[in-house]
């Protein structure tokens, strides 16, 4: 069995890489896959917190690489009943503690055992980013509908192409439905036109994402939350299902809800 190694990256910090990693990982596990999420943000780890596993950490990624423990000893099983594991980052070290070949080697071992290896990439385009990108075979870009995040996403897509990671897919996170309704938000089609990559999902801004992260239960477990449903659809798309994109809109009348259900609102976000 050879799993897929996917890096979740953005360039800009604070757009929701870690949240997306936790939710897509959980979503894939909920679909019955064996998944491991790897926090490569060494020195600033927080994937463990978002998944509610911070109290169970004994060993971390740097311990594995330096040979202090076996790979399996650093894997923490998720609280839920799914086949989901976390390899946390070291908090007391920095990005230069590992190099790309070491991370590549770890991922190669994980691919033998898991269907999906998801890497949470650090912000920025320095060593930590380069390590994570070198180890991955696919990439997911997370951005928010803000000019600064999009500029960074554009830069990162260029760097990914240079690193031979072609066809990254895009998640636009934290789309504010009220602002979309008022016309104050950037048009998603403009974002997609500019970045010229395939869209993997549109995630509405949702307070439940934040409360879920704080409680250590990724929002994808809450099927009533709009963002949770969006992440579940993203997981399905990563898994190869054809799920139409659902446009983010404010709570609306019965008709548009119905249209949403039958997929009429799912616009074609095409790109060249």
């Amino acid at each position: 069995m050879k799993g897929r190694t996917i890096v979740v990256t953005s360039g800009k910090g604070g757009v929701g890489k870690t949240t997306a990693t936790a939710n897509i990982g959980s979503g894939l596990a909920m679909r019955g896959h064996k998944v491991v999420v790897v926090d490569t943000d060494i020195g600033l780890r927080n994937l463990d917190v978002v998944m509610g596993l911070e109290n169970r950490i004994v060993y971390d990624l740097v311990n594995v690489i330096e040979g202090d423990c076996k790979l399996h000893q650093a894997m923490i099983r998720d609280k839920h009943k799914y086949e989901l594991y976390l390899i946390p980052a070291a908090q007391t070290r920095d990005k230069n503690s590992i190099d790309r070949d070491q991370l590549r080697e770890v991922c190669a071992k994980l691919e033998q055992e898991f269907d999906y290896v998801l890497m949470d990439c650090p912000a920025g385009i320095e060593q930590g980013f380069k390590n994570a990108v070198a180890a991955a075979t696919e990439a997911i870009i997370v951005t928010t509908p803000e000019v600064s995040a999009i500029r960074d996403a554009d830069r990162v897509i260029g760097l990914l192409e240079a690193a031979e990671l072609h066809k990254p897919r895009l998640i636009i996170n934290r789309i504010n439905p009220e602002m979309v309704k008022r016309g104050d938000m950037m048009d998603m089609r403009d974002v997609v036109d500019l970045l010229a990559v395939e869209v993997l999902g549109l995630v509405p801004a949702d307070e439940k994402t934040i409360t879920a992260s704080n409680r250590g239960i990724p929002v994808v477990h809450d099927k009533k939350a709009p963002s949770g449903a969006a992440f579940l659809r993203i997981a399905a798309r990563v898994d190869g299902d054809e799920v139409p994109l659902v446009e983010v809109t404010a709570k609306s009348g019965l008709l548009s809800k119905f249209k949403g259900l039958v997929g009429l609102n799912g616009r074609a976000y095409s790109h060249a």
Partner: protein
Amino acid sequence: MALKTSVVQVSGRGANVDFAIDDTGPFDEVSERLREYLVENRRLWSSGTISVNAGRRILFRDQLSRIKGVIEAESGLTVSRFWCSPGDLDGLDAAAVAAAVAERPPEPVRSKAVEAPPSSQPEMRLPGSAGSLKGVPGEALFIKETFRSGESINYAGDVVVLADVNPGAEITADGDIVVFGCLRGLAHAGAGGDPKATVIALELESPRIQIGPHIGLAPATGQRSKTTATGPRIAYVRRRSIYVSPFTGRFARYSRGILYEG
């Protein structure tokens, strides 16, 4: 200053030095005499960047790199670019041109795809980093992928982009820049100093345009949206200022447009 010798003519303005190399003699002889000249006059320069004017001579890549090698080894100068005068090609013997074209090495790398640069190309841009590509004057470089933030190119001919140029990307060309897409990044046409160069784009949303020595800043957004609709645009220089007009053809007369203030 201007030092006249039979092989090489050196002229300089401030920090800029041009080497004009004899374009009639046999290549080997000229290159040897260039070397002698440099050794003799070593005390004239210590370090710096120069451009080389090859005149009417059609140089092959290995010849370019040999000249570059001779100059850099003997003088401590760095050769940043080569010029030749394509206009003079008309005066050349047709057979010589045909022979040169037949012998010309493969075309330069034309897309952003990573490809090992031939050794005689002094610099090659890799995606995601700044760099430059030696141009063949009179020929255009085609780029067929989106030009993204942080990517830049410097080319000694015309540049044609069959995609968008995103904010934060930079294109510098000695010739014209044509973008079949939306130009949102920075464009510098006529970078060798030619104010007749133009920038043409299907949509022009650059905050700043440079043509030759002139710089123009786009008017404030509110003002711009009032005065322009979307559509192809051309940026050109009139009376030392950059103007942008709806594009109506390469040889149309452009007299009015929106001023991009320098």
